[in-house]
């Protein structure tokens, strides 16, 4: 699917879309080094492994060796005459992956989670660098000494003396309640 999209876009860009599609194999003539792999020929029946489409349009192996061909001939006779290996060979000729192989877990999630952590970590480094190289120095009002004097001033003014700030200060003892 992805290759087809790339091909279509390339076709439109090259203005030789007609030429690109008329050929039996959809190779991008204009984009030279663009397409590394040959695109699947979508004008003929394709093979795919899908759980919801058990019998694809064509067998997996379409070019059979002589041994395969003779096995195919044997298939026309009673199947009880075939050995287990021959039956397996016939299956593999027709299909690429069995259902079990299709459904096998890929472990892709490990890559995804690993990638997430990696980029979060990288962002952390960027933030750290920012802290040291981008942000200007603190205003002096953030210094501990200034903050202490500010608190003292607020207490002296009796800020929120009923239920708020100064209410929590014990003026007799000179400490927080």
């Amino acid at each position, binding site marked *: 699917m992805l290759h087809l999209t790339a091909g279509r876009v390339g076709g439109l860009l090259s203005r030789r879309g007609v030429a690109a599609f008329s050929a039996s194999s959809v190779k991008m003539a204009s984009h030279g080094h663009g397409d590394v792999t040959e695109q699947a020929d979508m004008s003929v029946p394709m093979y795919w492994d899908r759980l919801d489409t058990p019998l694809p349009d064509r067998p997996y192996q379409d070019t059979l060796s002589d041994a395969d061909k003779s096995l195919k001939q044997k298939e*026309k006779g009673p199947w009880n005459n075939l050995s287990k290996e021959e039956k397996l060979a016939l299956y593999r000729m027709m299909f690429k992956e069995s259902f079990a192989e299709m459904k096998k877990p890929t472990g892709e999630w490990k890559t995804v989670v690993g990638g997430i952590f990696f980029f979060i970590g990288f962002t952390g480094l960027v933030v750290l660098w920012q802290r040291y190289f981008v942000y200007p120095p603190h205003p002096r009002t953030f210094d501990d000494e200034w903050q202490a004097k500010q608190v003292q001033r607020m207490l002296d003014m009796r800020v929120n003396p009923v239920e708020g700030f100064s209410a929590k200060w014990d003026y007799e003892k000179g400490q927080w309640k």
Partner: protein
Amino acid sequence: MFRAALRASVSGARSLTRARPQYTASVAARSYSHGKQETDEEFDARWVTYFSKPDIDAWELRKGMNTLIGYDLVPEPKILEAALKACRRLDDLASAIRILEAVKDKSGPHKEIYPYVIQELLPTLSELGIPTPEELGIDKA
């Protein structure tokens, strides 16, 4: 059909009761509020007839199987028997094995369906010489 099993699991029951579904996944795939609804037996009979066609061709087999697997149900053993016999007429052992794999996959979490189907199909399987995926070892990746 085994679509009832899917409904049964939604309601929490684990048995294979054959309750009547509210609508049928027929070829037209529409829920009619009026008009004749296809019964399970009619559905089964229609598909058995489809696969029993003596001169069925490979395309029809593929189309039939892919469509049948597309439905929200596990096909009855008698439909599968007709399909396997169609594979025999077409000299296609691989597709027969693939059909069995697809049935197992369609059962989803209901692990009891596939052994039941195989048990029902055993006469046909041994008569035609079709191995089960387990016998070939392709049931494990």
